[in-house]
């Protein structure tokens, strides 16, 4: 970067003359080294997946989760500095619980993304803090059914419209990605971390905007994409962590849960098979019969 050494990157919240905030850009650099994280918005729910690089053989497999549950219906996965991600999740939980305190119901995913975006953005404004070193993917399911208000004990009058609109469509999947600048967009498929370029290319092939991909296929695709994205850092071992949130009539009944062991194994197996198939195709070109470790 040509602007290094000009002094405009030393303090947070200071613009350079060409309108950039360098501390935020450096935070993005921190994210670019993190394990790949993706989110896919499917027809009946949302899938979150992360490539967890194993930094030590002494770490217990399956422990040290990287995808967190917020309220019941939201999951957050982040890439970048893990402790920053933890703090971010803690804030998200506080926001979801304070929403319940006020409105006696679950926070909509868009509202949560909005509040978190505002929170992250505030960390670009002051010289006393540094920006978040994470890009986070927030996935969830807004209930399509009319939920009881928290603490509701009865159903009220059985006649009359009660202010309801007949046949209004409510709820559905929500997927947002929040960057260190506080910028957030809603996505059909989101990817961040080291392998984001490869992951984005794969996500674009899925034609997610048609909203045809089923949740189970989404799980398989997510596993495959994480494996594809890992190709560039093959020397490091990794663990695949995956969670999902389905519709109320789906497998998780609107809750954010870990993908069941059997399904995860199946998806991983399929992902390895898909990669081996690719390897065989260009085996002649590369002239090596290299195999993925099982």
């Amino acid at each position: 970067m040509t602007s290094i050494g000009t002094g405009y990157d030393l303090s947070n919240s200071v613009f350079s003359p060409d309108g950039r905030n360098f501390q935020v850009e450096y935070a993005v650099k921190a994210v670019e080294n993190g394990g790949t994280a993706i989110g896919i918005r499917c027809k009946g729910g949302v899938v979150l997946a992360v490539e967890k690089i194993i930094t030590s053989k002494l770490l217990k497999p399956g422990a040290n989760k990287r995808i967190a549950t917020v309220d019941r219906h939201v999951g957050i996965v982040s890439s970048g500095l893990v402790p920053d991600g933890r703090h971010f999740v803690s804030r998200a939980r506080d926001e979801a619980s304070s929403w319940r305190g006020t409105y006696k119901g679950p926070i909509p995913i868009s509202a949560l993304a909005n509040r978190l975006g505002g929170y992250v953005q505030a960390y670009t404004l002051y010289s006393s803090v540094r920006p978040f070193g994470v890009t986070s993917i927030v996935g969830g399911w807004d209930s399509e059914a009319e939920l009881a208000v928290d603490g509701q004990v009865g159903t009220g009058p059985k006649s009359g419209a009660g202010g309801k609109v007949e046949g209004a469509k409510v709820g559905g999947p929500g997927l947002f990605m929040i960057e260190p600048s506080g910028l957030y967009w809603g996505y059909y498929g989101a990817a961040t971390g080291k392998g984001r370029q490869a992951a984005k290319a794969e996500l674009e092939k899925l034609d997610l905007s048609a909203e045809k991909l089923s949740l189970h296929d989404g799980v398989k695709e997510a596993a495959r994409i994480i494996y594809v994205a890992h190709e560039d850092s093959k020397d490091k071992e990794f663990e695949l962590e995956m969670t999902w949130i389905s519709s109320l009539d789906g497998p998780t009944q609107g809750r954010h849960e870990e993908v069941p062991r059997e399904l995860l194994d199946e998806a991983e197996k399929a992902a390895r098979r898909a990669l081996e198939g690719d390897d065989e195709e260009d085996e002649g070109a590369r002239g090596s019969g290299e195999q993925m470790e099982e």
Partner: protein
Amino acid sequence: MNHFPEAWGRPRDDVYGAYNSTYLQTSGPKAHTTSPAVTGTSVLGVKFKGGVVLATDNLASYGSLARFTDVKRLRVFGGKAVVGFGGDVSDMQYIDRLLESIDIRENYSSHGNMLNAKNLHTYLAKVFYKRRSEFNPLWNHILVAGFDADDQPFLSSADLLGTTFSSPHLATGFGAHLAVPILRRKFPDERGIETISREEAIEALKECLKVLFYRDARSLDKYSIAVITQEGIDLREDEQIEGQSWAFAETIRGYGSQTS
């Protein structure tokens, strides 16, 4: 006429007399809730072989007025325990939200909600005791049903003072006077819960609910019943008391039109 702002919108002293300011005391002790407002009556519970059954009627009374007739007073916690609430309905709603927030927090970990009915009962009893010690009680008497850490059926009560009591069959409110003797006759201690079947327990509670509907003026013939077993919770919230016979009412003397 008095045009000063402090008199705006107030009844005129010369017409209505001075406002009785004793209602607005600023000195003296601070009083929190000293009586419940909208209340639910009895909660009944029986342990049987392999589980617990809990029942309440669906009424919330405002004093002697049958104010709300579809109030569900059995609340499920974490899919494993049920709390039956007697007493103040708004305090029940507060506790319900409190339990909801605990369940959400427990589910942050990948183990899910590991709290069993016994843990829940201990916790709620401590909440009640803390609040009564602050002279700001939660005006409820509850039964907690489910399983303990050894997967044995669990049934215990806690009240607004933080008092706890446990027994193979329990009832709160009016039920403590009318249902418990029936349950004790049906299920004496010598029998042990191992000899009580699920059907027998449910029948006994239905019988008690009927007796309570006959004799407790703050009760209703619509009720909720929850059967908690290791397989899960079977909660029915729109049941009707069957097979009523009011023939006995003819013979009652001493009130109403039959004073002698």
